[in-house]
Every structure is written in C-alpha cells, then in structure tokens.
C-alpha cells in the first residue's frame, strides 16, 4: 500500500508526520521533496540518483529505526530527476518492501500529483487554524481527482491555547482528524531518528500518530 502525506503549505510538519506515521505502520518512508529534502541523508545514492536512472530504488534505501529512501539536496540533482519515474519507484518499493509512506513536497505541482496518482490513500497535514482549511480542501480536491481517498487529517503542532477547529475540519473534509500536539519530542524525532511511537509510546503525540495509522489500516481494509 502506498500512502501519500500531503498538504499544500510548506513548513507545517509533513515530514515529521510522514516519518512518525511510517514508524507506526512499519513502512518505508520516501522523501519525495525533490527540491527541498528533509529526511536524514546518509552516504550513497538517493532518490535523485534513482529518478535520473543512476541507481535502483532498493539500493538507495537506508536502514534505521525507520527505513528511509532519502532525497538529494542539490539543484542539479533536482533538475536531473524525472518526476515520472517516481511512480515506478514508489510501486517498486511497495512491491519489494511492503508499505510505503511518501512525504510529498509543498505546493500542488506534479511532484505532489505523481505520488497522489500512484497512492492508494493519502493523509493530509494542516496547521490547526481555520484559515488552513482552504489549503487542505485544495489538496483534498487534487487527491480526489487522482483517486487517492483521504484516510485521515493531522492537525499538526496543536497547543492547549489553540482550541483546534476539529469539528469544522471533520465536517468539511469528511475524514477522521488527529491532533498532533506541539511536543518537542515530535519536532526532534526526524533529525534524531527517534519516532515517538517507540521512544515516547505513552505520549499524546504517539496516540495521535497511532490513530492516523489506524485510519490508514481501516482505509486499506475497506479497499
């Protein structure tokens, strides 16, 4: 199963949600942000090399608490990468390694469209603010057009003061909402490669990630 983690706006924590969701689902997390990669990058080939035909997808996988397919960070690499190859790459990783969570870039261009087109379902990430709803709806429309149903919505980095508009989001988007609290352990989890579901399993953040993962599993079963 391929799960796309998308949300039109940048800097709202798509990568953090994708990484932690990947841990909860025991999936490979693919950093599909071809222009501004976020997931830790080691040595060796990366997604840029794979999309430019220079390496096989499985060669670029990088082990750890969560298996990652990292992406390069150079403009030249982003320029040489053919986004159409991303579809085959995701399908291949899915076939060979089981579930795949794709961390999509911001915006609504083809680098979001291609993962959504091959994804079975998607998870939307949004700021816990009313004005973020417009962006979430736009991304949902694209996902719908490309036949990727919404398995859940993460309202990311909520604080007690926020009073997140959960009901409005649920009503408009028609999908279960998980509020991921602004927990510093979540913020650090990607760089430290310490997913909250394993390092802080009792936390509210881990609960939220697990509820997203449950939504994904339910959507998978009902397909």
């Amino acid at each position: 199963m391929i799960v796309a983690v998308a949300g039109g706006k940048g800097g709202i924590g798509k990568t953090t949600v994708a990484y932690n969701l990947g841990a909860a689902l025991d999936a490979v997390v693919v950093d599909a942000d071809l222009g501004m990669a976020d997931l830790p990058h080691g040595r060796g080939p990366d997604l840029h090399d794979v999309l430019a035909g220079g390496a096989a997808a499985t060669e670029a996988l990088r082990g750890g608490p969560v298996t990652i397919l990292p992406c390069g960070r150079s403009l030249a690499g982003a320029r040489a990468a053919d986004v159409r190859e991303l579809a085959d790459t995701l399908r291949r990783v899915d076939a060979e390694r089981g579930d795949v969570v794709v961390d999509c870039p911001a915006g609504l261009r083809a680098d979001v469209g291609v993962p959504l087109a091959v994804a079975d379902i998607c998870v939307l990430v949004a700021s816990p603010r009313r004005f973020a709803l417009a962006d979430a709806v736009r991304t949902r429309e694209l996902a719908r057009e490309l036949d990727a149903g919404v398995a859940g919505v993460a309202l990311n980095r909520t604080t007690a003061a926020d009073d997140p508009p959960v009901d409005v989001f649920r009503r408009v988007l028609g999908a279960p909402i998980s509020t991921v609290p602004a927990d510093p352990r979540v913020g650090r989890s990607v760089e430290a490669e310490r997913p909250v579901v394993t390092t802080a399993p009792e936390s509210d953040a881990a609960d939220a990630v697990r509820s997203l993962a449950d939504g994904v599993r339910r959507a998978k079963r009902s397909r």
Partner: protein
Amino acid sequence: MTRPLRGMKSDWSVNTLDGHSVTLVTVDIRNPSPVDRRVRVSNCLDGPVMPPRRAGVPAPGWNENGFEGVVPAEGRRTLGYACPAPPRRLPVSVVDAGRTDDDGADAVDAVTDAVRELGDPRPPSDAVPMPGPTVDASEATEAESEKQTATVPPAVESWLTAVEDRIERGERLTDASVVSATDALDSEDCGDVSDLSRRVAADATALEAVAARAATLEERAAAVDVPVDALRRLP
C-alpha cells in the same frame, strides 16, 4: 496535397527551418462521416518524432512513432510535429483505424496526466549552476571538477567518499601539533585510531589498483570505434 482515405481526407505540408536540419510536418485530417473515427498518423521521415509537449510530456495520443487518436464526426483535426530529418515526398502516412469503440479506448495514464496538467516541478535550468564557456578559470576548474564527480557512478562515488573521509581523518593526525591532535582524537573513537592507519594503507593499495585498471580501460575505451553507419547499412 490531398489523399483519399476511406471516408477520411488528409492534407499534409512540410516546412524546413533555415539553418536547422529539422522538418516541421503538419497534417490536417477531415472526417466527413457521421461517426467518430480513429486515426493513426505515422512518421515516414528518417528520424524520431518530436511531438508537441506540455510540461515536457508529449500531448495525449502522441508516441515515438506518431499520433493515434480520434477525429470527431463531421469534424477535423490538425496535428503537427517536428522531425530532425530532411523532408521527403511523403512525410507521413495516415491510416483510418475504423470507428471508435465506446469502451474508453483512450486509456488515461494518471501519472502522465498529473505531470502534464500540474507542471514540471524541476528547478528552472537557469537556477542550476552549469559550467559555461564564459566562466573564468577558477570557476571553470571548480565547475569542471563538480561535473566530473557528477558522472562517477553512485556506488564508486560512495566508496570514494568513504575513502576520502578516512584519509581526511588520517591527515588530521599526520604531523599534527599536540593541540590539534588532541582535538582530532577528541572527535575520534580511540579504538578506531589504531585501526585507521591500517585501513588507510589498504585504501592506498586499492586506489592504486583502481587507478591502474581505470587507465587501461580508458585507453581501450578511447580505441573503440564502432562503424555505426556501415553497420546500419547491413541488411
């Protein structure tokens, strides 16, 4: 020129671009019948089809041989493509492939569609530093070396990077002052250090072997001269 075509009619015209060995082919197909008809347009010039593209993706219906699509009932369809070859008397063949079936024969590929409709996400080429003829000497060397790294296969590159890393660690400990050696040792795992000089020595041997092999292969590669044209003329 008009050619009769079971029910359909087509005209073609060719244009050559001055100073470029490229031919632009235009085909105008008319379907006077009261049903939609499928048509197959194949390039007859001696070169690949360069179809119209959106966001780098060929427009719907185009492939490397030409175009396949539907001409609506009592309608017309005008197509055009480029081909890097000289023009000739009959640049295209148009085949009437019969009535269209209503089973959605124009299967859509969601991925190709997404790229075509949403636009190429790659950074514009102007944003990518490229070695050009106008850069000055120091920049040129830098760009050149970057370009060379880029063409090294990933597996070799990752091995070389690992070797470079070990050599750099070794260099920091070579002829170091007490202070800098202490600093360097601070950032090393002490168990590693005894092992480091042995590994760097092994790296040196391996690098020498690779250099020798690479030089031999380079000579052989340079001597290769496949008579492409002659071979192409073989039946």
